């Protein structure tokens, strides 16, 4: 079975765009007079790139394996919390209570000792590992139970939603030791770089672009491998795949875990850029919004998912500022329109359109 090229045309175009962005952002923000790329825009771009990576992660499970996870926000948030814990410890004695060991919120609720699960988060490397492990372990455990007992379709969607909902309730509790309602915030710096400085913001945005490119390449590598083909088999005819001797639950577990880790990385990059992580990131509504990014862009296209995330997030930024009332109407209408009228997403529709335009002259030639 010949392997498809790792980089096809659409990925090449997208990666080129990303590359231009990673050049334009630092030059426009740091090197040119008058800042043609203002800092607020840098932060926005960084945020959108994280969303795009999250969308790619969801596309990997939904687009290629048919697992509609309504709980991917949970993996994103867990990655974010792991990074947030490091950033919290970085604050050190510069907090309001000037406690060198305990974050402010712990002092506030009267804790005397750092809980064990916070140990070691003053080391960046440990936090970085936990960014992958926390979502990975949750996804593995959850998937182990769910896939083995063949929970599929809407049932699986509903219990993923229940999972993120339960986590949201849990993280709202002060006793959990993650800052309760307010979450983790008031970060100062990351690896010694001041989070408020333009240089750090540009750096994080570029890092997000690199992560997105890496995520896309990894996903593309997986989906063009034979394993990727088996995933599509599972999506289209799960039972048939079993009768060929493939252990479907192992494949699902693999891709679900990889996807969760990718979502965790997106969350970890997101948190230092927006400066806060709180339990509302776990809310089921957030997770469903990720789905519409992927659906709009085109499921099973990876690049489409990334584009969808950026389009919807940009529209949200614009609309919630200009016409706050209209945003939910627009989002709601988007859900309806995309599912009914654009089953292959924007990318699918555009490519079909281009294909038709190209074929038409050819067909005329053939007729003549």
């Amino acid at each position: 079975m010949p392997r498809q090229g790792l980089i096809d045309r659409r990925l090449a175009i997208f990666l080129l765009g990303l590359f231009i962005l990673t050049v334009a952002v630092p030059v426009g923000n740091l090197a040119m007079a008058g800042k043609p790329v203002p800092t607020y825009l840098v932060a926005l771009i960084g945020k959108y790139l994280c969303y795009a990576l999250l969308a790619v992660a969801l596309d990997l499970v939904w687009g290629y394996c048919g697992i509609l996870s309504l709980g991917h926000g949970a993996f994103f948030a867990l990655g974010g919390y792991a990074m947030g814990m490091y950033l919290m410890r970085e604050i050190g004695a510069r907090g309001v209570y000037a406690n060198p060991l305990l974050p402010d919120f712990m002092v506030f609720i009267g804790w005397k000792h750092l809980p064990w699960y916070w140990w070691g988060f003053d080391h960046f490397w440990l936090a970085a590992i936990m960014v992958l492990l926390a979502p990975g372990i949750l996804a593995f455990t959850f998937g182990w139970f769910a896939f083995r007992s063949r929970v599929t379709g809407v049932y699986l969607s509903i219990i993923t939603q229940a999972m993120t909902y339960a986590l949201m309730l849990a993280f709202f509790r002060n006793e959990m030791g993650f800052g309760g309602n307010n979450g983790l915030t008031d970060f100062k710096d990351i690896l010694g770089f001041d989070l408020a400085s333009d240089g750090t913001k540009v750096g994080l945005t570029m890092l997000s672009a690199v992560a997105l490119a890496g995520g896309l390449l990894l996903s593309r590598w997986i989906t063009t491998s034979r394993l990727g083909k088996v995933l599509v088999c599972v999506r289209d005819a799960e039972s048939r795949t079993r009768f060929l001797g493939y252990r479907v639950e192992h494949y699902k577990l693999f891709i679900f875990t990889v996807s969760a880790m990718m979502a965790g990385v997106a969350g970890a990059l997101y948190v230092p850029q927006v400066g806060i992580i709180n339990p509302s990131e776990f809310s089921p509504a957030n997770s469903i919004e990720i789905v519409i990014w992927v659906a709009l862009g085109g499921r099973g296209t990876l690049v489409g998912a990334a584009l969808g995330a950026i389009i919807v997030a940009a529209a949200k930024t614009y609309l919630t500022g200009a016409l706050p009332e209209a945003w939910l109407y627009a989002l709601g209408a988007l859900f309806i329109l995309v599912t009914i009228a654009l089953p292959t997403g924007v990318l699918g529709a555009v490519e079909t359109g281009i294909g038709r335009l190209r074929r038409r002259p050819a067909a005329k030639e053939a007729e003549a």
Partner: protein
Amino acid sequence: MSAHHPHAIGGLPPEELPQLYLNGVSRAFEGFKAINNLSLVIEPGELRAVIGPNGAGKTTMMDIITGKTRPDTGEVLWQQTVDLTKLDEADTARLGIGRKFQKPTVFESHTVADNLALAIKADRSPWATLFHRADVAEAARIDELLGIIRLGDKRHRMAGDLSHGQKQWLEIGMLLAQDPQLLLVDEPAAGMTDAETMLTADLLKSIAGERSVIVVEHDMEFVRALGCKVTVLHQGSVLAEGNLEMVSAMPEVIEVYLGR
């Protein structure tokens, strides 16, 4: 896979052990006995046709053999050593049981060649498939299979674009690619032209001998063309067994088929 304690049947030497052995198998769905005290022995290399009216339990029987459904009672043994009731679909497929469904199911968003490649006997673990590289032997095997199912010119077509009959052939090709020791074939002739039906019968006959084949079929012409031992199922158990002439002359079989 559990190593079942070998049953010795009449002191047969191992190479003479039955390929598949069902004894007293029953399975009920909400009180309805889909399979009722069914016993069946398939010898290595045997071709067997299973016929019976709708609801006779044919599909449930195949579900039980492939590990999709667990029987309530009874023994299901593979080469007298492996207890199939403890295995699932993937296990039985790896063991060497291939199944073709009544409604052709191929992977519609993969090409014909990919469909075959995915079916070829190989390490099925995610790790192996992730790092899998196509080799010359695999390409040759695909060419060979494409020749058998006469879809050589459709190699790069999406399987979803094939006609119903072509999908049937592709699925048979996938079955062969698995290199199974036992083939369970559910109504292979459905949707085929008469000529194709006869080709299919010839193909199945040529496969048998090396491998055991169980064919479930409604089409009596097709069964006649197979020219093999026939098992008649009725209400979940075996009503008659023998060659087609013999069983079709039996009054109880006639009653089951014509009496209602």
